[in-house]
């Protein structure tokens, strides 16, 4: 994979990849010694499981020394994404199989959610107008605002893979 080679070359030559460089998942894994191996878990329950996933993420992110504001952002984006999967991809039906992946690199946190439900590909995210006092429509906007990169892709054979990247405070400075 060219991205992996690029990261390896940059590290060997002592150059630090720019924080906004698009790095593939496999490139991030193993690209630096401090990178925690990607961890995957499978879930198939409903909304009551979202707290469990947050608990897992919160523990790992805390152990890795991720700054608390970044942890808050990742936990919220994860929650919004999981809620969307249950509501839109599975339309509230159970079981709702979902593979969640977390990878913590020195400069960023990578999250992936792979569902097997109805395809979901938002075409655009509009910023809600606070004065309108809308009671919904904040979820996708929050994900887009809180994360540095967000992509939706069709999964094989069905469903959607949502990948999100959050630059860590240390990488933004």
């Amino acid at each position, binding site marked *: 994979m060219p991205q992996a080679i690029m990261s390896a070359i940059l590290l060997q030559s002592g150059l630090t990849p720019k924080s906004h460089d698009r790095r593939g998942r496999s490139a991030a894994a193993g690209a630096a010694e401090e990178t925690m191996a990607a961890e995957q878990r499978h879930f198939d329950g409903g909304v009551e499981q*979202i707290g469990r996933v947050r608990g897992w993420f919160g523990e790992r992110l805390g152990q890795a020394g991720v700054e608390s504001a970044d942890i808050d952002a990742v936990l919220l984006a994860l929650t919004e994404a999981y809620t969307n999967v249950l509501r839109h991809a599975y339309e509230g039906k159970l079981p709702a199989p979902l593979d969640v992946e977390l990878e913590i690199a020195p400069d960023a946190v990578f999250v992936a959610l792979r569902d097997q439900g109805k395809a979901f590909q938002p075409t655009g995210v509009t910023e809600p107008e606070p004065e309108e006092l809308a009671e919904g429509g904040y979820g996708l906007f929050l994900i887009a605002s809180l994360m540095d990169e967000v992509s939706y892709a069709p999964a094989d054979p069905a469903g959607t893979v949502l990948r999100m990247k959050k630059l860590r405070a240390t990488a933004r400075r």
Partner: protein
Amino acid sequence: MRTARRELSNGGVVVSFDGEVALDAATNEALREELTQLGNGYERIVVDFTNVTFLDSSALGAFVGLLRRLNQKGGALRLAALRPGVRMVFEVTRLDRVFATAATVAEAEASLNEP
């Protein structure tokens, strides 16, 4: 999700959560029921967020609903003692412009008496 209400001499109420609670899709139905009841029963409301460890967009929507209800009635809503992760949700959506917040419940109570 259990809540406690403390009625104020000015007819207002302070509502707090019994024990730490994450306000997400799993607790949203109960939260909406509680806030609907509060909006029907009171005009001046302080919500004590001390025990709220997490808040997502579905909970945010429920609080917007309460604010709308109180605005219609000419009432007042104060959100007190928000943790940084909860405050972030209001800031990112810019809803901190339409919600009145206070650092402590005491401050929020005091501001309820202002015109």
